């Protein structure tokens, strides 16, 4: 159903009273370590993931710091070349496999998916806990590899170097990746089944929040892609341990075969990382612009489009690896296709912001940063998808900059936006508004200063992963390292004000942002099974009815912080219609 509404409408539903605090809630129902390590509560498991991946994020960040500091000098500032190789590999492996992939599905997906669809838990609570343990076992092998001296192959693990020549700790590192993949599969399976089977009455597919759609698409990739890389890593280990020729041409193997199999997963894995961030952004932009999402179905289906098309273009990583010209042409064309659903999202987000009552709390700042940086990251991806320019730019810092614009500028900012958006729900407290805005600004500025110079470096031919470079590149490297320092400072701030908020933060109400989703119906922090047992939610409308000023239960929205009645769309009945051609502000979906 599509219904045109305007900003000048009657207040259609009263604001419900603030629900009493849940006693007990999921945080204080028990305190022992054992109760946390054996919990099957999706919210607690989400927090277990939060703690784990935060540790790996810090470790990966330290490795990045070593890389950037060493590049201050053309001849390497303070570590030797072998240590440098291990530092950038450690950074890649930790950040990709143990932070970016589990970040949003593991933390926010676990915590929020059941709440958003009106369920008490995920479909398989014990499998959910098992997924965290499997993740930690995999991470344990990864840590073993790092503590034993690290890996020097790069996170892509290309043979024959990784299978024949490298003397570093390839086996435990690869085994850790192999094991953690199962965790990813378990989480994807759990989310998929939950969305299919456990939606509340009235929660039709057309009323699912876009965060749920994006995690559903992510789960599809996890289920279909991860087994391929799992088998690929097994084959790599078999070749390295037993000398059976699979990828090494010296013993009858084909190294390009590894690249095909590796990228069949690892390119879609980029979408495992970015799609959940896109889901977060859809929630944040609507809330802080007080607008219904522009083009709900287009955004929802573009997530599925990215998931499907993302599987068809892996070989653009291999244009100079010796694949056939015909195949390269095909993959170049297919690579262009993924720009379509990505652009659909960006245009619809922009349409959502248009004429919105925008406020700039930290989640919104991170969200806007995501959109800008993702656009730059996406457009520079087209340079790399084009055969001719890729030959010039392949394996240069241009690729590094592009990838970080998408992964850090996109995914990490999306994750930060999500953490800041749902932190009051997760812990029942508000963090420092001022410091969080400062952190968002510092991170965005630091990010630009870090990675824009790398585009220039790459365009002028500086290869990635090299510890040394010509002296004329030093100024850009110094700029990049200075930016990384600012970026690091920006990341440090949330590490202080978020934990401090647990002690000193003001109590948060059930719906501090005046948002529309079902997760905001429960008290903050939520009770053990999310919703009042006697009053399970019945959904009556779509997920973003900001124009009508109602949540998914059809109840009025409380005023958000700093917004007051003036920014409550439902209270604008007396306001004169805004000038301009756009009277139909939004649509009602579902």
């Amino acid at each position, binding site marked *: 159903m599509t219904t045109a509404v305007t900003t000048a409408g009657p207040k259609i539903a009263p604001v419900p009273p603030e629900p009493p605090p849940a006693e007990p809630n999921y945080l204080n129902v028990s305190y022992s370590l054992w109760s946390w390590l054996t919990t099957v509560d999706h919210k607690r498991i989400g927090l277990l993931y939060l703690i784990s991946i935060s540790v790996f994020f810090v470790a990966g960040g330290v490795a990045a710091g070593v890389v950037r500091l060493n590049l201050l000098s053309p001849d390497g500032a303070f570590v030797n070349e072998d240590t440098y190789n291990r530092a950038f590999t450690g950074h890649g492996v930790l950040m990709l496999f143990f932070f970016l992939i589990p970040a949003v599905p593991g933390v926010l997906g676990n915590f929020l998916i059941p709440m958003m669809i009106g369920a008490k838990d995920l479909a398989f609570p014990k499998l959910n806990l098992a997924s965290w343990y499997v993740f930690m076992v995999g991470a344990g092998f990864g840590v073993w590899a790092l503590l034993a001296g690290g890996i020097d192959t790069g996170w892509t693990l290309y043979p024959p170097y990784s299978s024949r020549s490298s003397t570093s700790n390839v086996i435990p590192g690869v085994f850790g990746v192999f094991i953690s993949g199962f965790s990813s599969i378990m989480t994807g399976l759990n989310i998929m089944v939950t969305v299919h089977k456990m939606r509340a009455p009235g929660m039709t597919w057309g009323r699912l929040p876009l965060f749920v759609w994006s995690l559903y698409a992510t789960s599809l990739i996890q289920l279909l892609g991860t087994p391929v890389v799992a088998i690929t890593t097994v084959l790599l280990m078999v070749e390295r341990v037993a000398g059976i020729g699979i990828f090494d041409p010296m013993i009858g193997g084909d190294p390009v075969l590894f690249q095909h199999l590796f990228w*069949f997963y690892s390119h879609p894995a980029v979408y495992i990382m970015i799609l959940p961030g896109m889901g977060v952004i859809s929630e944040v932009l609507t809330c802080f612009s007080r607008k219904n999402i522009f083009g709900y179905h287009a955004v929802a289906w573009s997530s599925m489009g990215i998931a499907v098309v993302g599987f068809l273009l892996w070989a653009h990583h291999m244009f100079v690896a010796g694949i056939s010209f015909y195949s390269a042409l095909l993959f170049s064309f297919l690579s262009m296709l993924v720009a379509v659903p990505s652009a659909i999202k960006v245009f619809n987000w922009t349409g959502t912001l248009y004429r919105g009552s925008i406020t700039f709390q930290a989640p919104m700042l991170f969200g806007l940063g995501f959109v800008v940086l993702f656009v730059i990251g996406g457009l520079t991806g087209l340079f790399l998808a084009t055969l001719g320019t890729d030959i010039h730019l392949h394996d240069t810092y241009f690729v590094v900059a592009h990838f970080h614009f998408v992964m850090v500028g996109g995914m990490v900012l999306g994750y930060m936006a999500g953490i800041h958006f749902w932190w009051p729900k997760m812990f029942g407290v508000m963090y420092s508004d001022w410091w969080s805005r400062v952190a968002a600004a510092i991170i965005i500025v630091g990010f630009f200063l870090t990675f824009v110079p790398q585009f220039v470096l790459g365009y002028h031919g500086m290869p990635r992963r090299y510890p040394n470079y010509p002296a004329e590149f030093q100024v850009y490297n110094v700029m990049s390292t200075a930016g990384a320092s600012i970026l690091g400072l920006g990341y440090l701030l949330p590490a202080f004000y978020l934990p401090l908020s647990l002690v000193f933060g003001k109590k948060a109400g059930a719906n501090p942002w005046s948002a529309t989703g079902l997760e905001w119906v429960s008290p903050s922090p939520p009770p053990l099974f999310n919703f009042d047992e006697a009053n399970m939610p019945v959904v009556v409308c779509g997920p973003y009815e900001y124009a009508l000023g109602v949540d998914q239960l059809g109840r009025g929205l409380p005023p958000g912080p700093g917004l007051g009645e003036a920014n409550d769309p439902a209270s604008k009945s007396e306001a004169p219609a805004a000038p301009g051609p756009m009277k139909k502000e939004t649509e009602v979906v579902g």
Partner: protein
Amino acid sequence: MANPHTTPATATPPAAGHDTHGGHGVIGHVDSPGLLFVVFLVVIGLFAANVAMSTSGALGKYTLFAQLAIGAVQATFVGLYFMHLRHGDKVVVLTALASVFWMGILFVLFMSDYMTRNRVMG
């Protein structure tokens, strides 16, 4: 801690014999252990045949095709018996077929490289 939402309100006692349904709507113990053991032996036997074929080279240029065929039969046995696709409903079977289709994408695009690598443009 128990989760009432995922715990069935009324537990259905498993019926004797085949096609029992568990509380989660999952079909359990549909095949006898004996049958599964026989299938296991068949799969292992095919594995041995595959290994023997790779070392003997008796089929010459057809060895690869024969080995792939054996692998396909093994996968079919695993799917039908160990993954219970024989008793799966349409959605489950469709899901399994979708994954095969997905693997087809891998093979087709993959072969677009290998089968054209030696062709010269122009």
